[in-house]
């Protein structure tokens, strides 16, 4: 187990290193002056030159990258205009936002997490529930309704669902406030009220996929010999489905869910844009538009960290579910 974790940690560091090198390299390969986006329109050449100096853009590329890495691990000193000392993990200074990148992240990350985590719980419960209902009565009215729901969820884009929900619940019925982010600690009710539409749209979209995945898995599992054995013992249907079939059918769902949640935490761009929520996805899009290198690097790295962590978590969960899986 310890060996497994060490191996995976090493793999994660390598992955993140590669991701950062690629992002860094890609940025400088683009035919665009990194500084042009960083100061107002009527920027004079002297000021541009100063920014270049402060960002270290005159240094060799390798030195720049090494400096960046050093900042993450040990912190580094930025120029006076960049707020001076920047503690580890230092991801640089954004001239566009005029603050340290870590401060921006600390502001936008909770928004994305607040969107994704409750939405994921919702789509898992809804997807597994629907899948179960339709697998237990294949061909029935329930099954058809669930499949129809899945098909709709999978084929209507999120911004359409989001727009309809906004129109109905916010602008027509006025049951909900205009979506906005309030920290959970400040006011849980306003936190939920401002995010509930985002949760619902995401859950609708994803539960569609999960319902179909789980239905197929469960149908396959129900035809397994060990399910027949469970029946032959004289177990009730509840126990046969709820214990023997469910545990075997849920394993692949866990895998997909882990990866989906990991990817979503890296930024739910469309959701955040549709509902005007200032999360990581929006920050990433803004950074790309403005050519804000430190911010782009940071959002890509954070997204990569989530994906790597999600993969690790999936492996651990899988080993917990299936005793045949050996970690190592």
């Amino acid at each position, binding site marked *: 187990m310890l060996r497994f974790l060490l191996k995976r940690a090493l793999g994660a560091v390598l992955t993140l290193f590669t991701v950062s090198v690629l992002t860094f390299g890609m940025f400088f390969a683009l035919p665009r002056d990194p500084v042009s986006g960083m100061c107002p329109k009527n920027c004079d050449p002297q000021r541009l030159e100063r920014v270049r100096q402060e960002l270290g853009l005159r240094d060799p590329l390798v030195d720049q990258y090494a400096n960046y890495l050093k900042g993450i691990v040990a912190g580094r000193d930025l120029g006076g205009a960049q707020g001076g000392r920047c503690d580890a993990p230092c991801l640089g200074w954004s001239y566009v936002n005029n603050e340290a990148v870590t401060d921006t992240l600390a502001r936008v990350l909770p928004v994305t997490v607040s969107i994704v985590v409750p939405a994921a719980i919702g789509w898992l419960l809804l997807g597994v529930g629907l899948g179960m209902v339709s697998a237990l009565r294949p061909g029935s009215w329930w099954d058809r309704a669930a499949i129809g729901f899945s098909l709709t969820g999978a084929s209507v884009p999120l911004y359409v669902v989001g727009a309809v929900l906004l129109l109905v619940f916010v602008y027509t019925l006025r049951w909900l406030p205009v979506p906005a982010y309030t920290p959970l600690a400040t006011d849980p009710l306003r936190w939920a009220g401002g995010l509930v539409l985002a949760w619902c749209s995401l859950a609708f979209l994803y539960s569609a996929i999960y319902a179909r995945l789980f239905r197929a898995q469960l149908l396959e599992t129900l035809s397994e*010999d*060990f399910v027949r054995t*469970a029946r*032959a*013992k*004289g177990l009730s249907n509840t126990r046969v489905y709820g214990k*023997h079939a469910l545990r075997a059918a849920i394993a692949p769902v866990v895998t997909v869910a882990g990866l989906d949640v990991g990817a979503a935490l890296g930024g739910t761009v469309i959701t955040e844009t549709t509902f005007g929520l200032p999360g990581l996805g929006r920050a990433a899009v803004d950074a790309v538009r403005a050519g804000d290198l430190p911010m782009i690097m940071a959002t890509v790295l954070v997204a990569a960290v989530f994906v790597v962590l999600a993969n690790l978590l999936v492996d651990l969960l899988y080993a917990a579910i299936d*005793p*045949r899986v050996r970690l190592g």
Partner: protein
Amino acid sequence: MVPYLCVDDLRVSFTGRDGAVRAVDGLSFAVQRGRTLAVVGESGSGKSVTALAVLGLLDARQATVAGRITLGGRQLVGRPEAEVRRLRGRDMAMIFQDPLSALHPYYPVGRQIAEAYRVHHRRAGRAQTRRHVVELLGRVGIAQPQRCYDQYPHEFSGGMRQRAMIAMALVNDPALLIADEPTTALDVTVQARILDLLADLQVEFDTAILLVTHDLGVVAQVADDVLVMYAGRAVEQGSAEQVLRRPQHPYTWGLLSSVPSWHGDPATDLAAIAGSPPSLTDVPAGCAFHPRCRYAADTNGRCRVERPELRSAGAPGHRVACHLGDEQRARRYARDFAGVTR
């Protein structure tokens, strides 16, 4: 003595896309406690379906079961599912063919057996159940039963898995044990040991055993009575001695002569039965076996139109479904098969 399991005119049909399929068509047999009835036939002859019908494990949405199945005096067909469930695993239990796929891969073996016990003994405590299961694991010949209790099926060998499966079936001391090809997935030496174990346990528990198999070697080793099935019907029925030593049906002759024998001449090829078993959607008219029977022409076409009923084949208890008269059959058997079968 009243047989523990009585099956009378059992009919099972499946409704599929190709219309109704008659998997079992008017089957009757009985098994007493302490005795073993072997149901023999090729794949698709309806033997496994019969076993599942007795246990009530056929999906009611797909299969229609008619006739009478009486277990210890209780009629099972048409009984509410909740009541049949209480008998399942307690009064009748099943050993499946492939113990690797029949055991749940995610739960320790001991716990799976314990579950079978506790579902019928609600008041049994954890410690007591565990003691009972560990003792049983030891009795079916698993070394270190304490340790094996917490191991998973994939950590067991094939023979150990089948022993665990047997322990699971016996955990509630059932009066009827149904074994569907219990040794097919095992290699020959393990096979022999498992059969010995079953025989010992049968004496100990006074169990009625319904053994479903295609392996006549297994039949010779353990069966008291034999039922030969073809296309969902019984074609020959009798004691093991009668069916194996003085077989009456041409299909049984074919089955027996396709088994290699120690005493046979290795130079002569094994006789195979010509053709293949019929599809159950399209069972031949008359005697279902007639297209493959080399004597079908000897009855002036009767085999092609009229279905033979089971009738006495001379000796008491020995029955056969064939249009050929006893003497006609005796002559043909002496001419074509004497010395070939063992």
